[in-house]
Every structure is written in C-alpha cells, then in structure tokens.
C-alpha cells in the first residue's frame, strides 16, 4: 500500500459498517432503504446515464427482482443466496428482452413502450394470484445466510452493505473496461462506434442485461427489507423515485447515484410529518436539479479535485 489513496475505499467501507452499533431501529431501517435505493440508482444509471437510453422499465426490473426473490423463498422455501442469484439472473434476462425494442425505437417511443411494459408487469402481479397472491401481497420469510440470521434490520444492513459495495465495485470496474467504453461510445455516436468495430446492438443488449442484473439484486434486497411485497410497490411513483435518484445524483456517475439515494431516502423521512410536503419537495428538487445542476450531486462533488480523481464520478 504505497499509495495512501488506495485506502480510501476500504476506509469508507469500514466507516459505513459502524452505524448499526449506535443507531436506533428507525434510523437503521432508513439506512437499509438507502442501500437498496443506492443499488437501484446504480442499475438505472447504467441504462439512463451511461447507455443514454430513455428506457423506463426500471421499476419493472425492481419488481421482477423482488418477486423472484419472494417466490423462491416464500413459495419454494429456497435459502436467500440462491434466491438472490435467481433474482439477478431472471432480471438480467428481462433486461435483455427490454433491450430489443431499444434497438429499433428512439427516445420518446422507447420511453412509452418501456413504461407500458412496467404497467403490464404490474397487471401481471395483480392477476397471477396463483403465483403472486395478487394484491394481497406475497410474504417473504425471514432469511439466513451461512447460518447467520438475517431477521433483524441490523444483520440485514451488513448484508446490504456488502451487496452495495460489490455492485458498486463491479460496475465501476466494468465501466472502466473496454465494455464500459463501448457503452458510452455507442451513446455518443453510434456510427463512429461501429467504425471502431463495436457492434452497437450487442453493446446495448449488454448494457440492459447488466442494468437488469443490478436492479434485480436491489429488488431482492427490497423484498428482504419489507418482508411482504405487493404490486403497488412497483407503480409509477416508484419509477418517479428511481428517475429522481439518478437525475438528482447525476447522470453517468455511480457515486452520484449513491449520493442521490442518501438524499432522497433521508429527505422524505424528515418531511413525513406534513402531509403532501414530501411530493412537493421531491418535484421541486427534481426541477431545480434539471434547471440549475444538470450534473446533479456528482457535479457538486466533482468540484473537489481529490474526489473527482478518486471517486467514480463519471
């Protein structure tokens, strides 16, 4: 470890592991939610920010991940780990399916088709009672991993923290690889990317599958967090939240996504006492960022040179 800056990430991780020792149950639950939404935002940002695709199937991906987990655990009594891997895999496949219209449709047309896809899936959750128990919701049994019970929010926090760190690290590595460069190249100029030997269609498919995989993992965390999932959790307001996370955090910035999750998950809790205030502040925040801070929180963070170099601000 010749370079002390290499210790930045391990140090952050150790710091992030400490809260369960001194926060109360309520704060612990919020911290868990932050981690779930951090993973959601990372996954959505891959499609929206890096690949530049106006695809709004993210709440659908989230639901597929959560339902896959709930079905594997609640119906088939699988342990959490295989349920999580199934959620990641199934949602990656759904991402692949959603990428197919993206090969043909541009901008708003893609947005509409993917929105419709999300609503269609929600209709499916409601009406496939035999699998999902419809609108009454599907319970998710308490999980354990390697003999450690995950029944408490404290225990789940450490699991979620590991998953978030893995997703962040893996995604950052992928983005700095030739695959990540290809994704951004196709976003910037599809013809020129093809002239470099990049297959635009395959690259888009890959980005959607990867995004699906990540959001599927977030869905699995969400299922564990709530203990019962129902179709209403994956409606348009969920999608609006996801969109706000990415936009306020910063398009094309992984660390921005995490920052967006922190701000947008904590803020509603502070505003909870006044009815309706949550939505108003949310919308104002989104409009404000779009107008005055197009790079989001990541843009603010990147003004500090040290952070710009050593965090993945994009």
């Amino acid at each position, binding site marked *: 470890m010749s370079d002390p800056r290499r210790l930045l990430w391990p140090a952050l991780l150790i710091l992030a592991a400490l809260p369960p020792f001194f926060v109360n149950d309520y704060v612990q639950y919020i911290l868990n939610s932050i981690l779930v939404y951090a993973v959601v935002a990372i996954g959505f940002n891959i499609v929206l920010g890096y690949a530049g695709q106006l695809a709004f199937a993210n709440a659908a991906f989230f639901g597929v991940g959560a339902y896959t987990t709930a079905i594997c655990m609640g119906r088939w009594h699988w342990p959490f780990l295989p349920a999580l891997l199934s959620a990641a895999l199934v949602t990656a496949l759904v991402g692949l399916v959603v990428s197919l219209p993206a090969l043909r449709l541009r901008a708003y047309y893609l947005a509409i088709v993917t929105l419709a896809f999300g609503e269609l899936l929600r209709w499916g959750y409601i009406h496939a009672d035999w699998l999902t128990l419809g609108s009454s919701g599907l319970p998710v049994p308490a999980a354990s991993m390697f003999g450690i019970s995950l029944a408490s929010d404290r225990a789940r926090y450490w699991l979620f923290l590991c998953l978030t760190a893995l997703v962040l*690290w893996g995604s950052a*590595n*992928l983005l700095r690889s030739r*695959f990540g460069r290809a994704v951004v190249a196709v976003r910037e100029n599809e013809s*020129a990317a093809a002239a*470099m030997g990049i297959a*635009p269609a395959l690259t888009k498919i890959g980005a959607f599958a990867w995004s699906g995989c990540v959001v599927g993992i977030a869905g699995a965390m969400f299922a564990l967090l709530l203990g019962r999932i129902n179709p209403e959790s994956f409606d348009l307001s969920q999608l609006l939240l996801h969109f706000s996370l990415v936009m306020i955090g910063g398009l094309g910035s992984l660390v921005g996504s995490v920052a967006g999750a922190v701000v947008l998950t904590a803020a509603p809790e502070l505003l909870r006492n006044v009815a309706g205030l949550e939505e108003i502040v949310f919308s104002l925040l989104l409009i404000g960022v779009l107008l005055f801070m197009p790079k989001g929180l990541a843009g603010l963070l990147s003004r500090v040179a040290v952070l710009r170099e050593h965090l993945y601000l994009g």
Partner: protein
Amino acid sequence: MALLEIESVSVVFGGLAALTEVSLTAEAGTVSAVIGPNGAGKTTLFNAVSGYERPQEGVVRLDGRPVTGLPPHAISRLGLRRTFQNGGLFGEMTVLENVMVGADRATRSGIPGVLFGLKRHRREERRAVADSRAMLARVGIDRLAQARVRDLSFGQQRLVEITRALISRPRVLLLDEPAVGLSQAERDVLATTLRQLAAEGIAVLLVEHVIDLVMAISDRVLVLNFGRVLAEGTPDEVRANQAVLEAYLGSA
C-alpha cells in the same frame, strides 16, 4: 491482388444515382485520393466501402474477400478503419478514452477479469493506455490526452479521430477530409504521417479538398463528377487532364 478492390459500384438514392459504376483499387503501401466537386459522391463511395450504404450493384473486396452487405462493425474488424467528415468522435469522453475505444478490439479480457479487476485485465488496460499515449505522441497531440474532446478545436478533433483510427493498426485507412480545419503546420505533420503509414504497408484512401496535399502525397488520384469516374491516374496525369481541369481544378 490489391488490398482494397472497388468494382463497378453503383448506389442509388430514391431513383437518383449517387454513384454509377465506380471502380478503384488500392494497393498496400500506397496513398490514393478521391477528389471532385461537392456532391460528386466521394463520401457516398466511402460509405459504400465501409458498410454504411449498401451498393445496389458492384462489389467491394478487402484482401480478396467480398465485404459488400456486411455491417460496418464487421468490416471494421476485418481491418478497415475510417474517419467521418462531420465529427465522428465521442464528445463526452477524453482524448485518451476515444483513442482507447479504437484500441479495444485488441484488448483481451473476459467478464470475470473485468468485474473483479483481475491482474491480467489490469495489465491489458495498462498496455492499452500506453499504446494509445504512444500513438497520440506520434501524431503530436499527447499533451491533450486528458482533455474532453468536446472542448477541443476542430483541427485537434480531426487529429484525435485519425489517431483513433490508426491505433488498431488497420490494413486499410479511409480518411474523409482529414485536412479540414488544420493549420499549415498540422497539415505537414498529417502529410508526413500518412506517407509513413503507407510505407508501413497500409493502404490509405482519402477524400480531400486540399488539392496541394492530395497532389503531394498521393500515388493515385480518382476524380469523381456526378457520381461517375471522370479521370484516374497519377497526380501529374490528373492535373494535365482536360476534363478534370474543366470540371474541377480549373475553377479552384
């Protein structure tokens, strides 16, 4: 057998003939130029060769292999690289990243290696960075490596695009108006670089309006007018051609 053979290629846009039976061969180690008035079909010819337009008639062969009908990325992978007339760069990426995209077909690393930052993948990345920086130095713009492409001048962007095409060590290089926006000094560097590339065995094909540059570095010149071949030959032959003088050079 020539490295690149264009054999009586015709392209029609909605009943309008953009190219009519154009033929051209480019040998390894030579520089060929396509000149002609605006709208003569020069860029369309490049598009037909690199897979962006599908010719209605004729065939394009790369090293004896027909590539007509293949998508652009497949033709690129066979060793043909091109630049674009109106900015084919990735504006939000840095100069170094742009050039690395050009080098990435040669980068060997699998998904596990990438995800977990394994040693071999990191070594490959370092090699790609070093190669890209070396190529930027060769074109004389290594000091721009970390600059965002969008912030560069037009001429600098041109040089980045050429560097990016070169990094993959293509066998055939198509340059669409590479000298536009370059200063005289930059043009001289460009001319020297292109001759060096040809000497290394690359077939260089360029579309260009800067006639001095074309005549100075080309082995063969093809003149297009209204989508047809008006003349073809060495720079001296073309310069002396009466039809060319009337249609193009005389007016310049």
